[in-house]
Structures are given as structure tokens and as C-alpha cells.
């Protein structure tokens, strides 16, 4: 492979939360790595200079949950299509859940996904390995082999293990290999048949509800198991205020538990379902304003240390059904940064904290040396205009999935350049900007 370009990103506001940097500093890149922050090192001559005046320069985003639909559901999207969407969104690393077809429960499937991502080259794709075979919650997988094949974490996607003994054994086995386990906290008996938050809007629209206890019961169980086993667990996509309190309390007691929240949960509430908006059908469901505010607070405070897209691109037919029959999920990569920017604008958190939750925070959860810009690290960089306002249209979406409730809404914050391992993988054309 030819020597990669030497690149200088000049004139921007460099924000690197892991190193406590928020200052007007240049960034210099060679051989795919960061070589210096600030003045260029002696003898460094850039092949290419990116002028970032008025822009924010920060670590490329690390998304803990994005479904790429390959293998198995290529009619919805592909690794190629969705990694391009990721690049356009400033996301350089994607962790995809194992609920593909076939399931990521063998090294072969993990390698297929990893290598397809590598070949396309627009974003780093890391498949989460299945915690149990076929995600059926009965027999654990060959986790050591999955880890060797490139799975940084184990996960049950959104099919929680109902047998508590199996869950305990799975956590113990994963802990033997220092693997973090991603858990979707949902008591399936309590949520059965539900499609919205059990509350005022669901009651009025006659939509079957999912109570908050469906989440808190599962969180309580899994925190107890984490305490018992000493395993490291990560709650994927919290939705309730009470769960954030339980997590904070567990963290205080030294239990190795972390959590993320999907960006839409920080912005939307149950009210957005009104009018039967199928694009607001998500799992877990959109909850009350009080829940949303508690989630915001938990993210600002760091109890919840990552914000992810929970990207779920769908074909048009999947949403062409009455609300309860419509497939859940939002095509969310390209609104990840704008939704988080709306929180910065509202004063929920400062820009540096917001960037930490999108980069360093999730990288720490994966246990990978990503999401930061010290010398010697992979030059995964996002350059964005924090003041740009734009309107999301179907034409503007790079993702194959057009299922988003944010179409037509004004958004704040737009990516200008994305670099993965020192290569420019996305550049917004001037006409678009």
C-alpha cells in the first residue's frame, strides 16, 4: 500500500475530551496516525491541508449500535450503503448488533462483516458477537473465538436471555475473557404485545403499552447478576429515569456497569407518537418528558457515558402498516450529531461533553484505543460546522433507510470532513454546505 497522505487540519477549534483539549490548535497526520497537535513537528510537510476555520475538529464518532442489515436483510441496506452514511455523519467506528441472518455466533460471520467493512473502507465495522447461540438464550457461544475474530463485545441484540441461570453463566464465561456484555434491558413478559410507552398518549390512542417496569425489572436483575459474577455489563439504550438512578447507585457501589442512550430518546417523547407516527415507533418506546429529562441529566453527568444512533434503516414497506404492525426503528446515523447539537444548544451539556459522549465514552466501553487524538493514535477525525443549520430531506440522506421522524425538521451541526485512519472518507461538497 502506498504511503498515506500527510494531512494538516488547520485553523479549527480542536476538541479532544480525553486529553482535556478545547483550543484553537492544528492537527497533523501521517501514516494514518496523529503525529502532532499544535505546531507541526520539525520536518513535517503536509501533502494536503484542510482549512477548518470556524469548524470543530474532534475525534471521529464511535457508535455502539448501528444495524447495517448485512448479511441477511440486504433489501433494507448494506454494509457499503450504511458505512457511507456513517462517514457522512462523522462516525468512524460502528458496532453492529449480532442479529443478522445468519446470527454473529460463529467466527466466520464475524469475519465476513469485519472484512466487508474493511474492504469498503468508509468506516470501521466491529460486529458484536452473540452471547448465546442463535440468540436463543439457551447455549452460550464460543466467545473466545468470537473475540479473536474481531468482536470487541458480546451482545444479545434486543432478544434478552429470559433464563436467569443462563444469563448468569453467560456473564461469567464472558468475564473469563475480559469481554464486556451488552444487554438490552427488557422484561419480555411485561413488554409483550406493547408498542408504546404505557402512559397518557398510549391510553388515548388505544395502543398497547410497555410499562417502565419492563426496563427497571431487567436492570435490577442484571445489576444483581453483575454484582454476583463481577462481570462487566453495559446497558444498551436506557429509556427510563428510574433505570438511570439504579445505574448510578450501582456505579457508586463499584459494580462494573455502564450504559448508553439512543440520541432520539434525548429529544423525542411519547407525545411524538401522536397521530400514529410510525417513524416514532421504537424499542424501547419513547417515554415521558420526565424520563427524557432524567436521561439528559444522566448523560450530562456521565452516568450514561455514550450516546448512540441505534441506526435501523428500513425499506419503505416495513413502515407501510398501521402503527402496531410497523417495524420499529429509525434511520438515525445522519441525525446523530444534529440531535446531540440540539442538546448543546439547549444548554443540557457543553460541546466538549457532547463530543466525549460520542467518541471517547463509547470507545472506553468497547475497550479500544479510539475516540481520542493523542499522537500515535489512529487518525479518525470528524470536522464539522457547529453553527450550520439545514433541513433533512430524503434526497439528502445517504442511508438507504428513509425512516426518520426528523425529515423536514431544521437541524443544527453538519459534518464537513471525515477521516478514517488518516484517509478522507467523506467531504461535503461546497454546493451542499
Amino acid at each position, binding site marked *: 500500500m502506498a504511503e498515506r497522505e500527510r494531512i494538516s487540519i488547520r485553523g479549527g477549534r480542536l476538541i479532544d475530551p480525553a486529553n482535556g483539549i478545547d483550543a484553537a490548535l492544528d492537527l497533523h497526520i501521517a501514516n494514518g496516525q496523529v503525529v502532532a497537535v499544535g505546531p507541526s513537528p520539525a520536518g513535517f510537510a503536509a501533502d494536503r491541508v484542510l482549512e477548518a476555520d470556524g469548524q470543530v475538529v474532534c475525534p471521529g464518532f464511535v457508535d455502539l449500535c448501528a444495524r447495517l442489515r448485512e448479511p441477511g436483510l440486504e433489501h433494507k441496506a448494506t454494509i457499503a450503503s450504511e458505512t457511507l452514511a456513517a462517514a457522512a455523519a462523522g462516525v468512524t467506528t460502528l458496532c453492529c448488533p449480532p442479529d443478522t441472518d445468519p446470527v454473529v455466533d460463529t467466527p466466520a460471520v464475524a469475519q465476513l462483516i469485519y472484512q466487508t467493512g474493511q474492504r469498503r473502507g468508509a468506516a470501521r465495522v466491529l460486529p458484536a458477537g452473540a452471547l448465546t447461540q442463535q440468540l436463543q438464550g439457551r447455549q452460550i457461544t464460543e466467545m473466545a473465538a468470537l473475540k479473536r475474530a474481531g468482536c470487541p463485545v458480546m451482545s444479545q441484540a434486543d432478544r434478552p436471555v429470559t433464563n436467569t441461570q443462563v444469563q448468569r453463566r453467560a456473564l461469567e464465561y464472558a468475564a473469563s475473557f475480559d469481554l464486556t456484555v451488552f444487554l438490552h434491558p427488557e422484561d419480555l413478559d411485561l413488554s409483550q404485545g406493547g408498542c408504546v410507552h*404505557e*402512559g*397518557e398518549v*398510549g*391510553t*388515548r*390512542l*388505544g*395502543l*398497547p*403499552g410497555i*410499562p417502565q417496569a419492563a426496563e427497571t425489572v431487567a436492570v435490577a436483575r442484571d445489576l444483581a447478576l453483575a454484582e454476583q459474577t463481577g462481570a462487566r455489563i453495559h446497558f444498551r439504550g436506557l429509556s427510563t429515569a428510574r433505570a438511570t438512578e439504579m445505574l448510578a447507585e450501582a456505579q457508586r457501589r463499584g459494580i462494573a456497569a455502564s450504559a448508553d442512550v439512543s440520541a432520539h430518546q434525548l429529544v423525542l417523547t411519547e407525545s*411524538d407518537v*401522536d*397521530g*400514529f*407516527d*410510525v*417513524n416514532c415507533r421504537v424499542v424501547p418506546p419513547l417515554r415521558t418528558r420526565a424520563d427524557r429529562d432524567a436521561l439528559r441529566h444522566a448523560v450530562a453527568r456521565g452516568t450514561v457515558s455514550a450516546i448512540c444512533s441505534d441506526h435501523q434503516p428500513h425499506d419503505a*414497506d*416495513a413502515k*407501510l*402498516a*398501521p*402503527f*402496531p*404492525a*410497523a417495524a420499529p426503528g429509525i434511520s438515525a446515523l445522519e441525525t446523530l450529531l444534529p440531535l446531540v447539537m440540539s442538546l448543546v444548544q439547549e444548554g443540557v451539556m457543553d460541546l466538549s461533553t457532547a463530543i466525549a459522549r460520542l467518541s471517547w465514552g463509547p470507545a472506553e466501553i468497547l475497550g479500544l484505543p479510539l475516540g481520542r487524538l493523542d499522537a500515535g493514535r489512529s487518525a479518525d477525525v470528524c470536522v464539522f460546522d457547529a453553527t450550520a443549520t439545514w433541513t433533512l430531506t430524503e434526497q439528502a440522506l445517504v442511508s438507504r433507510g428513509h425512516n426518520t421522524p426528523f*425529515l*423536514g425538521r431544521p437541524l443544527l451541526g453538519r459534518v464537513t470532513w471525515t477521516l478514517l485512519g488518516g484517509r478522507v472518507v467523506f467531504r461535503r461538497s461546497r454546493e451542499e454546505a
Partner: protein
Amino acid sequence: MSTLVRQLDAQGNLKHFLTVEGLGRDLLTEILDRSEGFLGVARQAVKKVPLCRGKVVANLFFETSTRTRTTFELAAKRLSADVLNLNISTSATAKGETLLDTLRNLEAMHVDMFVVRHADSGAAHFIARHADPHVSIINAGDGRHSHPTQGMLDMFTIRRHKGDFSALTVAIVGDILHSRVARSQIQALNALGAREVRVIAPRTLIPAQAESLGVKVFHSLTEGVRDADVIILLRLQRERMSGALLPSEHEYFRLFGLTEKRLRGAKPDAIVMHPGPINRGVEMDSQVADGPRSVILEQVSNGIAVRMAIMSMCIGTQNLHSQDPHSQDLATRT
């Protein structure tokens, strides 16, 4: 919001009838007034008026129902419309695409109005959103969400007996959680200014934050019917006995079944209603069902008049927007 479907045209005329929610007192009163006019049609020698002559109404029932479908059919026929009855099983393929495919096929036959019943809440809104703009959709029951024509026929029955709504206390007894009928009744009663709307059931059959619907919640039938002017009993589906919602029909009847004795706590002139079909010995005993306070059969005949009123209003709105002078003429003859 992009998915919000408007039931009214720009001038506030009824285009679709999907839910009572959001409709004002004036419009609801207009429906009731027009229904009075149609009540006489059944007693004429020729039980027909030409308001929907030349129009095609398709009854699109994804859930089986005999009585509701029959009253819609009769209502449409008395308005001189041509009627298609389609019973489509929900079991196999009646999901999203099929629903739209069915719709497109019928649109190709130039149907003017769909009367839709479906097991999913929001199904009528979904169809209204995707249907040709010239077509009107009448919701004949969608999931737990809404059954607005039933709600209005109940209002019509109440008004014929009680007159003004503002002095009324109405108690609705039974499975509020799963009931589309209850939601439509509650919305209509509140819009028409009823003094107090109560719901009575064990907590397993009351939806979360029920008070937000504008009701008072009771778990005791005796307390709930006290001084009530109207008692509406809801049908209890057999399947509620599974799923840990209720222990047995026996205990339900003992606690929430309406008997002559319990009825004594209500106002002396209180009426008893039920959307049917009745489970005798579960929701009420036969003495009450067949007794002098019961207006249950009247509800059925009123149903035809109310459905005629609603269908003719929607078709009238279509005609207002049509260029056909003949239709315009018919529209003004209500």
C-alpha cells in the same frame, strides 16, 4: 406532524370519520341533529333517500362482525348507495402491504367510501393517509383506539332520553383497557359537556393514567353507579379470563355485574346501555337486560340513523369538492 390525518376539510366539513377526538361540540351536535332526521326513514313505506345515489360504499372488515357490518350496510342502502361487503381474514396475510394492496384494488373500482374495521389501533388513520384523496374513510373500529360511530349512536340514544348533557353523570362499567367503544364514548361525552364521566372496573382493566381521558376512576360498582343518570356496560371478552386480568366470570359478575339491586343506587330514571352482544350473567343479569331501564335494542336501531347521518355528511363533503353539478344538487338536498 406529517402523519396527522385531518378528518375535516378546510371549511370544517366532515371528510372522514376516524375518531371523536378533536371534533367540537357543534359538529357532534350536527351529527345528532341529522340523525334525528334519518330516524323517520325506517318508518316510511319506501325506506330510502337518494343522498348517496350512484356512490359505492365498501365495507372492509378485517375483523369479523355481524351487527356493525349489517347496520352499516343497511345505512348505506337506505342512502341509495351500492354496497360491497368484504370480509378479509386477519390471520394470514392481512398485514401492511396486503392492506394497501386491497385498498388500491378497491380504489381501482372507484369506491367512494370505505367502512373499515381492523384489529390494529390506527388502522383507519393509516388507510385514510394512503387512500386516494377523493375517498372517505369511516372507522368501524380499530384495535383499542376508536369506534366513533358506536360512540355517536350511544350519544344519540342518551340525548333522546335525557336531553341536555350538562346535567348528566355517566358511568361506564367494564373492560376500559381494551375498549375502543369506551374511548369514543368518553371523548364524545366530554366534548358534549357531560357533568361527570366515570369508569368502573378492577385495576387490571383500567388503562394507565385513565384520568387523563377525562374520567373519574372507581373500583366499586356500588360507588360508581351512585346517582348515575346513564350506566353503560361494556362487553367482556372471554379471552380476558386468561392472561391474569380476571380470576373468573363468576367473580366478575359478583363484583361488577349489574343487577336490579345494584341499579337501585343510580338515579330512579337511569338508563342502562350496552353496545352488544350481551353476556347475560356476566355484565348484567337478564332482569336488567330485558327490564324497563334497558335501551339496548333502541341503540341498535339508532345505529342505522346515526350511520346514515355520518355517511351522508362525508359524501356531501365529497360532492362539495366535486365538479359534477348533479352531485352538487344532491348534496344540498339534505
